[in-house]
C-alpha cells in the first residue's frame, strides 16, 4: 500500500509496501516545469585547422623528376581562451534560475558540414541520429588519430553557454625533412626527399591529404619552378558544423 509518513529522523517518506519511492532525505531529482526549459536551434561550428604543406621531389636520375605535394595540418589548441584564429568564443544559450544546481542537456544534431578526408579516412561523426543525452553537458563529436573535437553546454553563473574546443596533436618534429629545407644538393642538382612550406611551424605538419602529383618528366618538378611543379594550394577544408536543436531542463539534485 502507498504511504506518506514521517520517519524518526524528521524526514517524510513516500513508499509502496515498504519500498521507498523517495523521501525528503533522498528526494526525487526535480526539474523545473516546461515553462522554464531552454529550447532552441543549435549550431556548433568548428573552424578549419591551420594548414601548411609538404613537397616531395623524386630524382631517380636520367634528368627527369617527379613530385608529390601534400596538405599538412599543424598542431594547435582552439577554445574560449585561444588567441586569434584559435579563439572559439562562448555562445550564451539562455539563463536558468540561480537556485538550480543541475541542468539536463539533450540535443538532436546532425553534422551538416564534415571535414575533408584525412589520408584515406572519411571522418566519422560521433553524434548519432536521434536525441542525445549529454550528462554534464559534454559532447565529443570527432575523434581520430590526429585530432579531437568537443563541445559542452555548461552553466557559467546563471548563463547556459555553448563552448567549443578542438585540438590537434603535437607529435614533435619527427619527419625526415631534407637538410636546409632544400631539394638542391651541393652541386646544384636535385636530391629526392621532402621539404616543408606554407608558414610557421610547417616542420610540425601532419600529412593529411595528397594535393598534387606529377609524373616524369615533369620538366622539372621542383617546388620553386613556375611550370612542372606540383601545386601546394590548399584544396581541403577540415571545418565541421553540427546543426539541430537543444533542450535544457534546469533542476535541483539534493547535495
Amino acid at each position: 500500500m502507498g504511504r506518506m509518513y514521517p520517519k524518526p529522523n524528521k524526514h517524510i517518506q513516500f513508499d509502496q509496501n515498504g519500498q521507498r519511492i523517495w523521501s525528503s532525505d533522498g528526494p526525487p531529482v526535480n526539474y523545473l516545469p516546461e515553462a522554464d526549459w531552454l529550447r532552441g536551434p543549435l549550431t556548433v561550428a568548428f573552424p578549419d585547422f591551420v594548414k601548411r604543406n609538404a613537397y616531395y621531389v623524386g630524382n631517380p636520375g636520367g634528368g627527369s623528376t617527379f613530385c608529390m605535394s601534400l596538405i599538412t595540418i599543424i598542431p594547435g589548441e582552439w577554445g574560449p581562451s585561444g588567441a586569434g584564429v584559435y579563439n572559439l568564443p562562448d555562445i550564451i544559450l539562455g539563463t536558468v534560475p540561480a537556485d538550480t544546481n543541475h541542468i539536463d542537456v539533450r540535443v538532436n544534431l546532425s553534422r551538416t558540414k564534415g571535414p575533408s578526408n584525412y589520408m584515406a579516412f572519411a571522418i566519422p561523426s560521433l553524434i548519432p541520429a536521434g536525441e542525445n543525452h549529454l550528462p554534464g553537458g559534454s559532447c565529443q563529436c570527432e575523434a581520430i588519430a590526429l585530432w579531437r573535437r568537443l563541445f559542452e553546454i555548461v552553466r557559467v553563473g546563471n548563463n547556459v553557454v555553448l563552448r567549443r574546443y578542438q585540438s590537434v596533436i603535437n607529435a614533435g618534429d619527427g619527419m625526415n625533412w631534407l637538410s636546409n629545407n632544400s631539394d638542391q644538393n651541393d652541386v646544384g642538382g636535385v636530391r629526392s626527399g621532402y621539404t616543408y612550406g606554407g608558414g610557421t611551424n610547417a616542420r610540425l605538419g601532419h600529412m593529411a591529404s595528397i594535393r598534387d602529383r606529377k609524373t616524369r618528366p615533369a620538366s622539372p618538378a621542383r617546388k620553386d619552378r613556375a611550370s612542372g611543379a606540383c601545386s601546394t594550394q590548399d584544396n581541403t577544408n577540415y571545418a565541421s558544423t553540427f546543426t539541430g536543436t537543444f533542450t535544457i531542463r534546469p533542476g535541483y539534485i539534493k547535495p
Partner: protein
Amino acid sequence: MVADNFFRGWPQHNITAIFQEAPGGGNTRDINSPRNAPAKTPKSHLSRVFWHSSFFQFELVAPVLTKVVTHTALAGKQRWSGIDLNNNLINNVTTKPTVLGAFIESRGDVRVTDIVLMTHNLGYVPLYFIAHAGRVLCNGLNIQSLASGQMRTVSAFATSSVIGIRETAISADVALPAISKTYEVMAFRSPAANAGKAMWSFDGDAMLLGRGIVDSRKEYVRSVLSSESSFDIDLGRTMDIKNGRTRYSSGGIVTTEPDYNGSFAGSPYKAIGV
C-alpha cells in the same frame, strides 16, 4: 539538526509540496504566508523543496534493462597512396608498393554501427539514461584504447522506437579486438496531471500525488540512501581535450588517453537511482 519537513496542499491553487518552511511564519493554510514561500514559488527556494506538484520528474517506463554487448573486432588495414618511379599514381592500395617512389601510408579502418539496446515502441522519444560502469554514458566516450592507436567510442541516442548506442570503431595497422561491455538502459516519461484526480488520492492501494503525476506503484529518479543501488550523474563537464587527446572524468573516475597533457580535474557528481 534536521529541520522539520512538511507535506501540504492547496487544491484551489493546484499546489502540493513537501518542503521545509521559509522564515517569517504565518498561517500554515495560507499559500501566501512567508513560511509557505517554498510551496508558492518553488524555483526561488529549491534547496527547501523536496517535491512539488509543478516539478517535472523522470518516471521509469519499464524495468531497468541490463544489456551485455559484444563489440566486435575490426580488422587492421594499411593503404598506400602516392606516385612511383614508373609514373604510376598509386591510390589506396592495400599491398605495399615494391617500386620505389613517394608514398604515404594510411593505417587502420573505421566502422560506425548503431546498436539497439532497448526497443520501446512508445511512439515518442522518451527521456532516457544509459549507464555504463556505474556512470551515465557521455557522448563519444572512449571504451577501448590501445597502444597502436586503435580505439572505440560509444554515444547514446533515442528515437521514437528504440534506445541505443552508436559505436565508432577505429583499427590501426593491427586489429581492434572485440570487447564486451554491460549497459543499463532506463526509459522515462513525465506524466501529465489528471484534472479529474485530487491533489492527494488513492487508486486501489496506490497513493497518488499531484493529480496523479506521482504514483506509489511507479519508480522515479531520486537521490539514494546508503545501501541502495545507484549510478552517478555528473553535474558539470566530463571531458577535456588537449594535445589531440581526451581525458574523461565521470563519477569521479578518470580515464586519460596517452599524450593528453591538460589539467582537467573532473566535476562534481551525485549518486542517483530509481
